């Protein structure tokens, strides 16, 4: 039963990780940029949900209708102002830039919100129900998982069928050919970064009710998002979805069977193992960088 319990909580949390991973993967696919600010964008999403809740008394899950568009605009602007300038530069320049942007975000958060962790407590934060005698499902995790499913399905539909979504895929498959189709690829980069930011912030807002909200909370999520992307194959959206679920389950299993303190270590070991033995990931076709 312990096993089933960990599996269920792992999958539910993994759905949220998948969302963050998809965001990073989309950015990598379309722009060929590794976004080291991804975790910090997630942290900003946590604070957004927190303040919308405490100041406006809007439920964190409802607040997504504000958080998502705000984060999209923020990401779109970041791309236009900064990232766009290094898109044809070597990877180390892009890495330095996104690390710098992330540091600015986390340090601004430290100054503005102090390093005291905050807790977002909703009426259902600690409620759960039993599906079997010894197996319970947490209400906030289940809610956030269901929202994740809706967002992921919408995103798949958007990428699969819409004109802009197809143009994003074309840009990620061959940037030069996409230009020759008349696609404005620099606009696609900004849209991809906007969506990536919106997904990171959404993941942040979704875990806000079950997590400590802290200016440095982004760091462990950056590692998770990277592991998910590498596991799923850099640039693969489907891969990131599966990768997120896998990471969620592995984390829950290691908390149960090893120790909660070890879960980040296990994720990191997995990250290295994938890089060593299957650098193209489970679904990847592009080689890792």
């Amino acid at each position, binding site marked *: 039963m312990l096993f089933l319990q960990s599996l269920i909580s792992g999958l539910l949390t993994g759905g949220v990780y998948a969302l963050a991973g998809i965001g990073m993967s989309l950015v990598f696919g379309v722009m060929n940029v590794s976004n080291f600010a991804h975790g910090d964008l997630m942290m900003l999403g946590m604070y957004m949900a927190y303040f919308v809740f405490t100041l406006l008394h809007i439920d964190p899950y409802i607040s997504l209708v504000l958080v998502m568009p705000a984060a999209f605009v923020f990401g779109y602007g970041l791309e236009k102002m900064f990232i766009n300038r290094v898109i044809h530069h070597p990877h180390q320049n892009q890495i330095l830039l996104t690390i710098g942007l992330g540091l600015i975000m986390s340090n601004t958060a430290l100054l503005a919100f102090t390093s005291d962790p905050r807790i977002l407590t909703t009426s259902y934060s600690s409620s759960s129900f039993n599906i079997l005698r010894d197996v319970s499902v947490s209400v906030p995790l289940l809610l956030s998982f269901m929202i994740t499913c809706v967002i992921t399905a919408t995103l798949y539909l958007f990428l699969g069928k819409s*004109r802009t979504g*197809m*143009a994003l*895929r*074309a840009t990620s*498959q*061959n940037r*030069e*050919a*996409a*230009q*020759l*189709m*008349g*696609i*404005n*690829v620099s606009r696609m980069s900004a849209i991809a970064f906007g969506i990536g930011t919106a997904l990171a912030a959404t993941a942040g807002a979704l875990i806000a009710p079950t997590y400590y909200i802290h200016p440095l909370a982004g760091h462990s999520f950056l590692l998770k998002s990277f592991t998910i992307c590498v596991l799923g194959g850099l640039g693969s959206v489907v891969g990131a979805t599966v990768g997120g679920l896998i990471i969620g389950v592995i984390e829950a299993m290691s908390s149960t069977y090893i120790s909660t303190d070890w879960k980040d270590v296990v994720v990191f070991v997995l990250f290295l193992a994938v890089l060593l033995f299957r650098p193209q990931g489970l679904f990847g*076709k592009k080689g890792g960088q």
Partner: protein
Amino acid sequence: MLEIGNLNAGYGDMPVLKEISISIGAGQIISVVGSNGAGKTTLLKAISGIIRSKGAIAFNHEVISNLQPHAIVRRGIVHVPEGRKIFPEMSVDENLMMGAFLHQKDYRRNLEKVFALFPKLAERRKQLGGTMSGGEQQMLAIGRGLMGNPKLLLLDEPSLGLSPLFTDVVFGAISEIRNSGVTVLLVEQNVYQSLRISTRGYVMETGRIVLSGTGVELLDNPAVKTAFLGM
């Protein structure tokens, strides 16, 4: 229709194109031939805006030098690149849809035209681009270009790596495309076949135009014969 005057372009600090001047009239097929590394692909990239250039490029009396590539496509210049550059994880249908990115309204009409030109594509609509053979990919690349309503079609080595049978199919298609009213700028290694169907040809060597004339004149030219036709 397309006037190029004193065009210079290159990569970084390295100049490739030197003082290129070319004039293309509507309804013609114009060939550019030359050995490997002469700068033929670079010329097409400069026209379609993939790389920056100095000098004048005018299309239907409008200066288009250094416009963004998508703005150039919008004006009716469509570039089918060397090596096809098919979207590998998109189906034939989706590849053709991307070709129609700026011309959704004409999608059905253009699709019929493309399938009439390359019936093989109509049989493979669901196949992923990346799994097609080289010859099929070339048809798809040309078809995808035609979906963009070209007035001027830039073709970079469409017969590269194709069997004689596919080569004939491609050259047949190029003549049909011209007959349907589209002007063609053709870069080819297959000098004989391309000059045969061309109104005019230009010979490029290390970034310069060294010879030009009608297709027939060039085919009879002793220098062309020794350099390209092995005679």
